[in-house]
């Protein structure tokens, strides 16, 4: 398959990338893992005039623990997350989702930040980020700002970056020892986008009640859906099957699936309910240290 012609630059520092981005304006696109952008170009669904390849910026590849959160750099690949001890110990929802993102080949190239920036409602990471309450660090020549994920994901394939800005880092709150999370995904095969994905996160208080609940859904709306109504309903409650069933009902009611080759909307709602129950069940087991 043959993409249309484009100009290409491979800066070696963030500053250089930002210069270039400022220079080419709207015509420029960051190339991270290329696992979404290149297929779109080959299918001629995207035709950026300039590609700014960030793969040479080694300083952007990291997963670190800083000040109670995990910092994930813009060159961190999905596969890095699958293997990361820091993630395994610091964010159960992420650790649970990582092996479900795409397939092993794509995971070796695709980046978490690229996926977050792409805002594909069928992408898995934004559900995880919405459920755990992550923040996106954006930089431009004018400086840096930190954007809560719920304000970053604006619409179908649309984020709230301003012209000249790129994502440099993702900040994910670190689980404490009363937190747990899970990501459940229904897919037709490895590397398939979700028919339904459910990201769940729980933090318990000292009494074992719910201090924080996070719930977000993949592939059942125009964007990854944060189920705020269920999250708020659960806070202060005793966790358990009954409560999770109630949350599941809210999720099924509020999601906005469409009927397509992956199944009718009614079916997807039913899976949202089942997976919400199951995901919170696993999150609870994790929060109670039962896994």
């Amino acid at each position, binding site marked *: 398959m*043959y993409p249309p012609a484009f100009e290409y630059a491979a800066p070696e520092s963030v500053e250089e990338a930002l210069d270039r981005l400022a220079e080419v304006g709207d015509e420029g696109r960051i190339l991270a893992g290329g696992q979404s952008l290149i297929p779109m170009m080959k299918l001629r669904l995207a035709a950026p005039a300039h590609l700014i390849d960030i793969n040479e910026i080694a300083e952007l590849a990291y997963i670190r623990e800083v000040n109670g959160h995990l910092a994930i750099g813009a060159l961190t690949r999905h596969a890095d997350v699958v293997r990361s001890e820091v993630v395994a110990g610091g964010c159960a929802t992420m650790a649970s989702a990582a092996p479900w993102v795409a*397939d*092993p080949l794509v995971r070796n190239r695709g980046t978490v930040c690229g996926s977050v920036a792409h805002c594909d409602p069928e992408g898995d990471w934004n559900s995880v980020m919405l459920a755990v309450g992550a923040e996106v660090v954006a930089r431009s020549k004018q400086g840096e700002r930190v954007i809560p994920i719920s304000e970053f994901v604006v619409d179908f394939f649309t984020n709230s970056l301003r012209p000249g800005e790129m994502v440099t880092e993702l900040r994910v709150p670190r689980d404490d020892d009363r937190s747990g999370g899970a990501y459940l995904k*229904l897919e037709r*095969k490895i590397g398939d986008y979700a028919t339904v994905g459910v990201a769940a996160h729980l933090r318990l208080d000292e009494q074992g009640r719910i201090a924080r609940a996070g719930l977000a859904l993949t592939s059942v709306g125009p964007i990854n859906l944060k189920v705020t109504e269920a999250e708020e309903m659960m806070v202060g409650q005793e966790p358990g099957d009954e409560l999770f069933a109630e949350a599941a009902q809210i999720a099924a009611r509020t999601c906005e699936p469409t009927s397509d080759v992956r*199944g009718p909307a009614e*079916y997807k709602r*039913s899976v949202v309910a089942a997976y919400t129950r199951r995901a919170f069940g696993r999150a609870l087991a994790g929060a109670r240290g039962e896994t």
Partner: protein
Amino acid sequence: MTTTHQPATPFEMGGIGHSVRRKEDDRFIQGAGRYLDDIQLPGMLHMAILRSPIAHGRILSIDTSEAEATDGVVAVVTGEMLAAHGLAWMPTLSGDTQAVLATDKVRYQGQEVAAVIATDPYVARDALSGIFVDYEELPAITSPQQALEPGAVLIRDEKEGQTDNVAYTWEAGDKAATDEAFAKADLVVTLDTHYPRSHPAPLETCGVVADVNPATGEATIYLTSQAPHAHRTLFAIVAGLPEEKIRVVSPDIGGGFGNKVPIYPGYVVATAASLLIGKPVKWVESRSENLISTGFARDFHMHGELALTADGRILGLRASILSDQGAFYADAQPTRFRAGLFHICTGSYDFGAAHVTAKGAFTNKAPGGVAYRCSFRVTEASYLIERLVQNAAYELGMDPAEFRLKNFIRPEQFPYLSPTGFVYDSGDYHTALRKAMEMIDYEGWRRRQQEPHPEGKLIGIGIASFTEVVGAGNSRTYDIAGLKMIDSAELRIHPTGKAILKLGVKSQGQGHETTFAQIVAEELGIPFEDVKVQEGDTDNTPYGLGTYASRSTPVAGAATAVVARQIREKARKLAAHLLEASPDDLEWEPGRFFVRGVPDKGVTIQEVAFAAYTNFPEGMEAGLEGVHYYDPPNMTYPFGSYIVVVEVDPEDGTWKVLDMVAVDDCGVRINPMIVEGQITGGLTEGFAKANMQWITFDENGNCIGSNFLDYLVPTAWEAPRFRLGETVTPSPHHPIGAKGVGESATVGSPAAYVNAVIDALWSKGVRNIDMPVLPHRVWGALNGVEVAP
């Protein structure tokens, strides 16, 4: 009779029965294969094709001026231009005609409308956006049922005498006898099912490099072809070129599966362009082009009825099919059989009467109907009978294994004349099924199925006991486009005792370079490593119909054995001359003649070969070579029994395979490792069909499934783990007793998977789910919700 084959040759010689490593893999695994897209010729131009964005519409105008003005564009070809040379339409393999580039109407999304020839493949594609086509949209017909409704828009309005959307009608079997059987039945079990449209999706897409020499008019056409000789003849007929001036070369092929049997419009356009421009022209499809426009497979809407006695015997079968042919009737199949060999649908069972009716309809979809890893619609037939048999067993309150064992054709009935006219050569179905049951612990699984599952999952066990018919022809009954379905082998032994074997078939990954060398090793005792197998170049190989329908070993393999035996007879005379003995006094052991009773007094085949060029007796023709055209006396009938155990999650409708065994009987196995590779691949493709894979269309005829995100191909990741077993019932009419195995598992396995899922859900009232058995369909069936599609 079941035997196990003991190799007659030592391993290093690599005759029949040895799992020697594939000779061709050295170059493939080192990236040194030479595929079509690797070919670069001096001055070569590149072609890109403009395709219809809509499913049905009249072409009002085509404006190519902007494309023509693009830098690097050499020419833009339209149907009008081809029409001037009589090339706007071409014949299909089923006697229909097909548009090369559309002139009047487009009839499916993705149909070829125009082509750009440019100096660079990127430029060629960029220039497509400089061609402007005005369409008057017509209603799209997206199912054969819709096509046959009164008043449906006529798709083939250009076809003289065509007043409806019927592509063909056909029948087989005996209606009166079948009616009689049904009148006697205690119970009739019916099944309506759709075998969905699928695509062979070989890793390498289709392509051509056409190189017509402007001075001599000689055309060298490099082609991704499973049938280079047949394609040469068809090119001669279509393009009106003298056949001796056409050389078709099929280089290494990255998978065919039936997809590379037809001649595609792109081949014709590129050849015409090369002829007109006088430079080589390359065209290689993109993945989407391959999926959207080249030969699809299956797409049969089937209705089946089994007449049964209360004590569990089958009396008769009625089957009717409505096939979705797409816009042109282009099935690659023997001329006499309009629905391929679908009438093998009586399967492995012994009963007196069957009647099959078939009707094909034109729709606004891509044409094809290729035999995707199956012998001409045998997959659809096998699926229908194996699904029916399971449902029949349940309706009778019998175990499906017991029901099969009761109704199988018995070993002593072979050769067996089927009610639709096939003569099954050999079989032992009881032994194969019993072996599979033992391997998987059938009784054990039936017990476990009854136990409550901790997570509420449902266990299902499914069987398929298929019989295939492969290896066409004989020439009396089978031809494609008039060409009789024979095949050939030419074997030359060089003075140093090495050999070259030239065949009319063409490997696409099946391992011919090894398997056929092993047949020579078996017959002549020349180590398989010393036998070069040459295929694909029509100037350099004898005529043949090509590789598909599991016919290479049954036909070309037989030709190889026969020509090797003929050469051995000449070698015997040479040996007698060298040993100064009478030919009748010589004994043969692999690779050597010796004087009877004096084992030390002998000559090797290599010594004989040298003598054939250096020391042959007076009056004997020099050399040691021969050619044989093999006309098979009958088809071969591989069979097997597959058993699958699945676990269904009733909440989300997903199912996974817990265990699977496949007992195959393909007669004598030449290279067991290659055979197992073929079976493993076929079981995986069968799983794909059952679990995830299909091409659908929306109500406007837009193809859903034009890329690998929508058209799902399983990888090692989701493919179940298979356990293989074998029985060996040689074909009595084949020189080495082999039957062909390239397709058994694709043919046999889909029903096994689906039967397992239905087995799990039977107690919940579920009687059928069409393939692919996607999670939402399982969920819909369990919850009584109609799910479309």
